[in-house]
């Protein structure tokens, strides 16, 4: 009697992991999906914040993939543990603040812990040799397998034929002949395989799977760390980096200025944690102060917020400054004209 083997698949929401999963399911293996939420994932968030994005129906791609494939999906909160990966990556960062190689090893390690706890046999990923410059190279494939502790229980169905046979192949749980030999940056083989499986409507993310590959986002993160003199962060910090215009007129504080209604609503939720400013004489945005206001800073902050209000061309604008405890007062300022906000203040 042959027992049905069980695998867990790292589902990112993109096409590659979807195909890798399908390839293994086709071989009669029971597959369930796992998705790790680091706080930086592209899924969700901003879509829900900005009003223009609210109009479009939004979906979580990992859930969508799981539903298309008819598998269970376990979404795991790894926000806390991920800090160590981001702050001290053994293999360093990619083009921006993305520690892709350490990140991959971390996720495979978490998946390995999961299969041990749940009695599953192996792990699959959608990795393709040469697809990503940092984490998916021929020489990094064994690094991920080794450092994650998964060893040869880690199978990459899309490029397995270019790698030494893993345990599932040697044991005959899967047929190596029916795995693939994809490599390089081309997407053509994946698209052809998707067609063969009749898969349509999949997400095609431009960069990586998370905000850390984004230059503008990474710059804001580094700015935050520098200003605080400490690289500790909370989920709220990294969420706020995705929202609004960030203006740092002084090293010890920056303003997060809402750009539209959806962001105003989102920032409102933080008014009991940050000093906030809002124009009262004219329609204008809500802004949070991240850091501390010293002598004279309040007027400067108010003048900047006034600049983004409808009163930008008026001589006087009234701004309400509200403390986290709800105490507030109004001050009158002359808006800082757009020309007087140096480029370097924009984070």
């Amino acid at each position: 009697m042959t027992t049905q083997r069980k695998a867990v698949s790292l589902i990112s929401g993109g096409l590659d992991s979807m195909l890798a999963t399908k390839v293994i399911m086709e071989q009669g293996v029971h597959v369930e999906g796992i998705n790790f939420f680091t706080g930086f994932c592209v899924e969700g968030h901003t879509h829900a914040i900005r009003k223009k994005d609210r109009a479009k129906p939004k979906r979580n791609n990992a859930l969508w993939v799981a539903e298309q494939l008819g598998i269970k999906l376990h979404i795991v909160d790894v926000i806390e543990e991920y800090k160590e990966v981001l702050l001290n990556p053994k293999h360093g960062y990619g083009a921006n603040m993305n520690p892709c190689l350490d990140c991959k090893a971390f996720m495979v390690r978490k998946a390995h812990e999961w299969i041990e706890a749940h009695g599953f046999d192996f792990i699959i990923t959608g990795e393709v040799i040469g697809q990503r410059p940092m984490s998916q190279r021929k020489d990094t494939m064994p690094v991920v397998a080794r450092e994650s502790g998964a060893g040869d229980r880690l199978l990459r169905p899309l490029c397995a034929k270019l790698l030494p046979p893993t345990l599932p192949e040697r044991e005959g749980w899967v047929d190596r002949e029916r795995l693939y030999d994809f490599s390089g940056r081309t997407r053509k083989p994946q698209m052809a395989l998707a067609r063969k499986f009749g898969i349509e409507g999949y997400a095609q993310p431009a960069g990586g799977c998370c905000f850390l590959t984004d230059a503008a986002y990474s710059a804001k993160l580094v700015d935050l760390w520098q200003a605080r003199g400490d690289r500790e962060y909370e989920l709220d910090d990294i969420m706020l980096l995705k929202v609004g215009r960030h203006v740092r007129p002084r090293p010890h504080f920056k303003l997060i200025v809402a750009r539209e209604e959806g962001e105003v609503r989102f920032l409102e939720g933080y008014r009991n944690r940050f000093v906030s400013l809002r124009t009262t004489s004219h329609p204008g945005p809500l802004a949070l102060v991240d850091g501390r206001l010293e002598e004279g800073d309040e007027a400067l902050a108010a003048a900047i917020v006034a600049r983004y209000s409808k009163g930008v061309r008026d001589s006087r604008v009234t701004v309400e400054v509200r403390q986290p405890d709800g105490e507030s007062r109004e001050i009158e300022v002359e808006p800082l004209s757009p020309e007087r906000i140096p480029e370097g203040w924009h984070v």
Partner: protein
Amino acid sequence: MSDRQTLDARRLLCPMPVIRVQERVETMNPGEELEVICTDPGAANDVPAWCRINGHRVLSVEQGAEELRIVIRVGGGEGS
């Protein structure tokens, strides 16, 4: 009705509401009900999608002006 549980997922952004639902459901028995209150409109898609995938039933989705209420019945019992 008395054994209906409530989960406050307000102000959490996706996929956090789904993660919280998943954690709570793991502690519940088949047949029990859970009412989830959220503010991220994305949860209106994600929570039901997660339920369909994992074999739980969505009994109702009620969209208020600010809040969204989703009632689910824990399904199955075939483990994991």
